[in-house]
């Protein structure tokens, strides 16, 4: 399987830096997926969830509040303001990450629709992990 190089970078460091099969991003004008060899583009991200399909086909979700993504044929660089990765060793870790993610989106987004849709996605992502 072909992979793309993905970097998710926040002001306090990289939260994902590695290979991925595909990545789904919450673009300003709608959600879009990126596979290897995607055409070059630079666009804004809005509050939402980034779904990263990793090499072992598991999906990791990262909640972001604002960002810019730069895609080229081999590489995807996502620059975000604040981000929380939904992952952890055990249930309580995941639950904690989930709480952090919720505060993040509540702090930033003022539209209830956005919060609701992101929360729904979050829950379903979390369901898979539990």
């Amino acid at each position: 399987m072909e992979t793309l190089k993905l970097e998710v970078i926040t002001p306090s460091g990289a939260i994902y830096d590695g290979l991925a099969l595909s990545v789904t991003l919450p673009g300003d004008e709608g959600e879009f997926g990126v596979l290897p060899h995607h055409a070059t583009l630079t666009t804004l991200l809005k509050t939402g969830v980034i779904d990263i399909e990793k090499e072992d086909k598991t999906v990791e979700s990262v909640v972001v509040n604002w960002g810019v993504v730069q895609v080229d044929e081999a590489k995807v660089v996502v620059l975000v303001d604040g981000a929380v990765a939904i992952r952890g060793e055990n249930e309580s870790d995941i639950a904690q990450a989930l709480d952090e993610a919720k505060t993040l989106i509540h702090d930033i987004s003022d539209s209830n629709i956005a919060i609701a849709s992101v929360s729904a996605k979050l829950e379903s992502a979390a369901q898979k992990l539990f």
Partner: protein
Amino acid sequence: MANLKEIQRQIKSVSNTQKTTRAMKLVSTAKLRRAQELASRSRLFAEKTNQVIAEIALRIKCQKVGGIESRAFVEIDTPQMVDIIFVTADKGLCGGFNMQTIKAVRKLMDELKEKKTKVRLRGVGKKGIEFFKYNEIELMDAVRDLSSAPDMQRSAEFIRTSIEDFYDGKIDGVYIVYNGYLNALTQKLHVERVLPINVDGYDCDEDKESMLEIEAEDNEKMLNSLIEKYVEYNMYYALIDSVAAEHSARMQAMDAATNNAKEMVKTLNVKFNKARQESITTELIEIISGVESMK
């Protein structure tokens, strides 16, 4: 005898100073480690943001993409008024750290004055503010307690005035001057123009490879948002980098001070021993000559 006591007092006072400077060095070393970690984590983000911005700016400049009229991408030949934002420490005792920044600011001001550009100074950090106040140079803004504890929110609020004034056309440029961290022994002075975006270091030829597409219609919003973040982040990064540099400078200065104190104690000890011997000799001579005269 009075001389002996005097020297002893001096030795004591110098070794006390030495204790203080050594403690300060240790404190700075610990703080430096934390600041350094923060700076290195943020460096990646800063570099990437600058890359993205530079690529876009280059594209607009080299290929003359029409329709994008953001002021941030246009070189202004004769700026009327610019903002200089400088970052110094809140505390002293860190060698030439603050002075270097201040000198760089003055140099920049002189250069701009030659071009007949007016300057608005905005200062962060007590030391720099005090210097310009003392020299009766007017500061438009003075923020304390930010450079010692960088905070994204506060730094963003601080820089926003400049961004807004830039878009409103009140100013034609924004410079950030700060002393950054290079390694534990050296600091590097940065004089950076954040607005309009600087593409001096890049070549149009290099960019041919890039496939980046920019369309004018829907990108104005994205660009503005990105530029705002870029400037805010540069400001924040300047603060973080400056803290790391401040601690490394202080660590060095305090190390030098400790060594100097050590030297001084050594010479004072020699002096003390000499004086002691001298007084013993005098006493002996007095006794001997007393005995001699009794014979």
